[in-house]
């Protein structure tokens, strides 16, 4: 009887501990969100979204150039990184059993661990220097290079999850390997692949280091991809380090917008999965 009580007590304590650990893990996120909301929400006015930077000392400036810049640069990154990353992931899952697959997987894992500033330097050496100027293009390519190994691994995981029985059923019908891979296997894994893409894009949208010497940042509104362009994380960085209160206010708001972007992308990713599951 005594032993039973102790076991029950121990069980409750451990359950409580796991709840506590969960709360502890969520706490920093909650605090960050709360802090950003408190400090930044007040500065989210119409001007913030529609006006670009104004001369120091003037009021009414905004982050429009940075928001549009981020959208353009991330768009470029997707154009470069998504097709390559997803294709490599599909290859690894469907045909990556042998030596080549092992080597590619290893390279992808190593690239996943490379600090993003190193990627930025790489893009600087191969794009900025030859071109002679900083550009959003270089920034997009740098972010795309970060996307590729992430997407290769997540896509591979998702395609691997498709049960082998589905592959066999397609092959038994007389489907060629490529048709089996694309029309049956990958189609079944689409929801998972899309989720992976959205989550990776959310992560890459907030990368600052690679943009430091590729896109560089821009005080003015620009959509010229061959020239320097503003981006949210760069602008937040620049304004946060500046001496003006007005700038600090806007930096908080910029950080809030950045995290909202991540949140929205994650929610969309979840909605895609839920939609597919309901349809299925």
């Amino acid at each position: 009887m005594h032993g039973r009580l102790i076991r029950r007590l121990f069980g409750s304590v451990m359950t409580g501990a796991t709840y506590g650990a969960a709360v502890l893990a969520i706490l920093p996120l909650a605090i960050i969100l709360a802090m950003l909301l408190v400090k930044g929400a007040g500065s989210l006015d119409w001007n913030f979204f529609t006006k670009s930077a104004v001369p120091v000392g003037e009021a009414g400036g905004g982050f429009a150039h940075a928001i549009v810049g981020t959208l353009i640069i991330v768009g470029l990154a997707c154009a470069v990184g998504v097709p390559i990353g997803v294709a490599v992931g599909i290859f690894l899952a469907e045909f990556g059993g042998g030596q080549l697959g092992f080597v590619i997987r290893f390279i992808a894992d190593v690239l996943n661990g490379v600090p993003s500033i190193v990627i930025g330097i790489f893009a600087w050496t191969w794009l900025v220097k030859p071109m002679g100027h900083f550009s959003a293009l270089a920034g997009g390519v740098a972010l795309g290079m970060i996307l590729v190994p992430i997407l290769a691994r997540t896509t591979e995981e998702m395609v691997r999850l498709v049960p082998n029985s589905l592959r066999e059923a397609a092959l038994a019908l007389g489907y060629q390997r490529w048709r089996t891979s694309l029309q049956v296997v990958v189609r079944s894994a689409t929801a998972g692949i899309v989720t992976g893409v959205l989550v990776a894009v959310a992560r890459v949208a907030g990368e600052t280091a690679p943009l430091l010497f590729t896109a560089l940042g821009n005080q003015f509104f620009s959509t010229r991809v061959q020239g320097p362009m503003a981006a949210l994380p760069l602008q937040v960085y620049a304004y946060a380090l500046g001496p003006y209160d007005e700038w600090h206010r806007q930096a908080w708001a910029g950080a809030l917008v950045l995290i909202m972007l991540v949140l929205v992308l994650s929610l969309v990713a979840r909605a895609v999965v839920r939609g597919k599951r309901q349809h299925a």
Partner: protein
Amino acid sequence: MTPPPTQPAASRAEAEPAVVPRLATDALTAWYGSTSGVRDVTLACRENTVTALIGPSGCGKSTLLRSLNRMHELVPGTRVTGRVLLDGYDIYERDVNPIQVRRRIGMVFQRPTPFPTMTIAENVSAGLAIGPRVSRTERADIVEHALKRAALWDEVKDRLDDSPLELSGGQQQRLCVARTVAPEPEVILLDEPTAALDPGGAAHIEELVQELKREFTVVIVTHNLQQAARVSDYTAFFYLGELVEVGATTKIFTTPTKPQTEAYITGRFG
């Protein structure tokens, strides 16, 4: 391609005029690396009959079945020696395309595997995607005909554009049968098709097999002796990778000649 061989009388189930059987094997051995899953099998299946492959777990019956439509070789490290003759022509000849073989010999698996991202109608016509182009109306006709042959038409005719995952297990399996018959193969292989189904669903599939043999040649692997006795015309008993005995089902189940066969049939092992 080699010309059709004359059939040795010893390997036939009963004496009859030398008609080329629809599907036959000649000293077929299926290898997993250096071990054989099934050895030296010589078997013939006549057109429009149902042949059941029975035996305890691990006896090689599924391996043999998968060698009949060149699915066995898809597993890395495997190979097949010997011949499999479809209408007298060896499907393992050097210049034979395995994809063409699989279009003429269809297979239904143990677990129902409808393609989840396609509708019911698209599932049925999935096999047509690789053949000659068919018009929309032709495709719809083929889908209807296949579903009728699979005894599923009445249950799904109003929801052909729905997801197949809404169907029950038995219905999904019949859908897989419809998908297999739509491209008009010559032989249908069934690998324990009712193992994952409830008795009602299983009964439907068994009725289906009887219907299917009118148009196709059927080979069915089954763990269920009563099912083999119910649905098949010929039965082949396998044990530890060897073909022990083959003959008319009634004869195998009432007067088997080999002691192992009798032991298995009467339930003394397996």
